[in-house]
């Protein structure tokens, strides 16, 4: 009995701990080769990147700012995954939610903080939830596979948001299409207002704490509530869930809605946090898709996702700063690294699985 628990522990450590770390290390090695080919010393490059992120509290703060939105889009993937659904539509859900929260922010301008701020978050959640519920509904009613519908809805969302901003919310005199700014009551307080020893003047804001709280709430929801039990049952075996009297249609739609809701809050970090305070579509492109990688790297576990999101924030923030020192390494090195991490992770997980199987065969 003890050894059974030990082998379960081994599985967890290997699949959820060792494999992602090994994948990250290998990805850095491969990224290093790319950097060498650009005529730059990768050790110098990465150590500069490291010190930019971790050298100062300011760096940490900037990194957190970059990391925050990834948490939300990754949670969109992972939450749906718990119910056996593949939500590839975080990108579209993020845009719809983003526009919704901006709209509340620049429309109900008389409302004070924190009422407007909270309303904005709720609007973001609902916008994303609506966009997520559509593929859920189509799956339940028409049997349309959510991978296809969520991808399609991404394109529709992007076009719809573009149209609304350009034709309804934008002042034609502005050069770049964006919405009006949200009112002050919607501003997300920066982290230094909450954590006194945090440096001021960075963009890291309360949304990072919201993310951590949501991660905890999600764990509670999935493992300790009736709804979470039903969502997991539906994901693991719909036939048995049906036997248990669980309404799997409603659970599927609800899961997709909650999943989309997470993505819908992703841009609050940019719009409500310190900065421009308006919805600027071009700034957020790709965060929804990268969320897939973050979710996988975080092994679909809310706490793992926080760590994975921080890694992505590390890369992104590092790449922005490191350009000053190594001008011949383009900033796209981040995307290359992200892609390599994902590919290597998939391979390493498969190898780890094979290794565990062999171990089991040997006994």
């Amino acid at each position, binding site marked *: 009995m003890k050894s059974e628990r030990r082998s379960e522990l081994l599985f967890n450590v290997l699949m959820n701990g060792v494999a992602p770390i090994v994948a990250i290390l290998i990805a850095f090695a491969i990224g290093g080769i790319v950097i060498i080919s650009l005529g730059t010393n990768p050790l110098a490059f990465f150590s500069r990147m490291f010190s930019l992120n971790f050298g100062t509290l300011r760096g940490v703060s900037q990194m957190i700012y970059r990391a925050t939105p990834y948490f939300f889009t990754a949670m969109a993937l992972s939450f749906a995954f718990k119910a056996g659904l593949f939500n590839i539509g975080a990108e579209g859900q993020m845009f719809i939610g983003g526009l919704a929260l901006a709209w509340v922010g620049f429309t109900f301008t008389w409302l004070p903080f924190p009422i407007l701020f909270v309303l904005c978050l709720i609007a973001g959640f609902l916008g994303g939830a609506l966009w997520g519920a559509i593929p859920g509904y189509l799956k339940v009613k028409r049997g349309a596979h959510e991978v296809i519908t969520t991808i399609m809805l991404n394109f529709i969302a992007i076009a719809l948001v573009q149209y609304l901003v350009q034709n309804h919310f934008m002042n034609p005199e502005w050069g770049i299409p964006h919405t009006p700014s949200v009112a002050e009551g919607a501003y997300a307080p920066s982290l230094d207002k909450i954590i006194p020893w945090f440096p001021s003047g960075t963009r890291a804001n309360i949304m990072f704490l919201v993310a951590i709280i949501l991660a905890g709430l999600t764990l509670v929801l999935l493992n300790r509530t009736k709804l979470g*039990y039903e969502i997991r049952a539906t994901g693991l075996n719909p036939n048995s869930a049906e036997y*248990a009297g669980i309404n799997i249609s409603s659970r599927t739609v609800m899961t997709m809605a909650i999943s989309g809701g997470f993505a819908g809050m992703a841009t609050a970090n940019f719009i409500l946090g310190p900065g421009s305070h308006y919805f600027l579509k071009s700034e957020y492109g790709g965060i929804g898709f990268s969320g897939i990688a973050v979710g996988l790297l975080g092994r679909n576990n809310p706490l793992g996702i926080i760590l994975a999101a921080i890694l992505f924030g590390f890369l992104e923030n590092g790449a922005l700063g490191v350009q000053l020192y190594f001008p011949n390494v383009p900033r796209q090195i981040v995307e290359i690294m992200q892609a390599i991490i994902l590919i290597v992770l998939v391979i390493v997980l498969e190898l780890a699985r094979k290794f565990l199987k062999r171990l089991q065969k040997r006994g």
Partner: protein
Amino acid sequence: MAENTRSEKAPDPLIRMEGITKRFPGVLASDSVDFSVQEGEIHALVGENGAGKTTLMKILYGIYSKDTGQIYFEDEPVDIEDPKAANEFGIGMVHQHFMLVPPLSVVDNITLGSEIAHRGILDREEGKKRIQELASDIGFDIDPEARIEELSVGVRQRIEILKVLFREAEVLILDEPTAVLTPQEVESLYEILNNLQEQGKTIIFITHKLNEVMDLADRVTVMRDGKEVGTKEIENTSKKELANMMVGREVLLRVEKKEAELGEELIRTENLTVTNDEGKEIVNDISFSIQEGEVFGIAGVQGNGQTELIEALTGIDEFSSGTVEVQESDLTNADGREIREEGIGHIPEDRLDRGMITDFTVTENFVLGYHTFERYSNRLFLKLREMDAHAEEAVEEFDIKTPSIKTLAESLSGGNQQKLIVARELSQQPKLLVAAQPTRGIDVGAIEFVHERLMEERARGKGLLLVSSELDEIISLSDRIAVIYEGEFTGIFDADETSKEELGVYMTGSKRQDEEKVRRKALNQVSLRE
């Protein structure tokens, strides 16, 4: 007994396994087991679930590596590292779960991995020809171009057998070959195996059904708890003896059934009809009632509407017409939750794909379907402590073998999984229990346990609706038996006054009782003798 089992072994076996030991984390799956097979025999390997039968055969087939021990092939020590090596010795295995690619044709499935090619060009015609020859050699026809997904389970199994023969196997290992088959398909499997034996093939089959052993095998080896208990010639043994060897104690093969003490009417159903998507009646105008303390059995060949009837009754599916009344309250097309709240338990026929969630823990499975009950949850949250307490209690009471209540249900043996489901349903103390194939695919000891428990419920005045394709089970447990054929009751019988043969005639629809009489007997309006 041990000494004379040794002397029964013939001098030069084809395969000899000596002192095979295999340890898995937490279990000694095979504990210095000796096993040998003679050329040309049908050798049954029996034992309860988890006794180590499959492990031993997977070692022989090279899927598992052994810790210690030696395998001899024609008296030469050999090393079987992987299935490919096993194939080279002419050993092939038909797994319990088929390994076929559903969208591909029969010929492509069989040749997969051993394709016949000339200069790199696939020769499908040649493959087709050989497959047809092999099939007709063992006595059946096959369309090599049919796609697997169009074929029944029985035919798929034949294809697995052909796959092994195509690789020129001389020794066939079949892992619980009848577990998935209907009685008719079992018959034709017997025929195929006998034909194979006539051709000089050697067959090892794993089973826990003693009837099959007596029907088919020349010799039988019994395993228990990873040890070999003995090997017997079929002529020199009996079902009773084998059952005792398997379980390690005296087993009652017949259930003790006390005189029925009937009470009030529990459930009354009238004119139940279920139609499928095409509008065809799968269950056609069925009525019955069950009293307290009564077991109402429904016998029939699988696929005659039993599943649909039960699923509509328990809220998974819906009746298109008819009424269900349980002690005054109307439960027609009630949902699963209302059904359970009304005190109706359900042991579904498909253990893994209805009855439990294998990736859930034992505790989580213990509340499946009851998780909305006040005892286990409030409006939002699960009461984890109560859930754990309930699971601990039930594991203890029903003697479910599990490392802990936090273990995933998938790592329990089939018998213990079934016990878990039975325990879950009975521990809610239902007044009516719907049990479908409650002992399918579980071992003798667990069957005895389930039967005893069901009879205890009956003695306590609970009602039981029992659906089973095992006629022995139906007859020994039921009070009244209805035979279902193409969605209709073709006859109603008193269990004490009927026989397997009589039920069999009605099960194929070749005989029917008068329709009105069946209805009135099923509703308890007239005595069964009239």
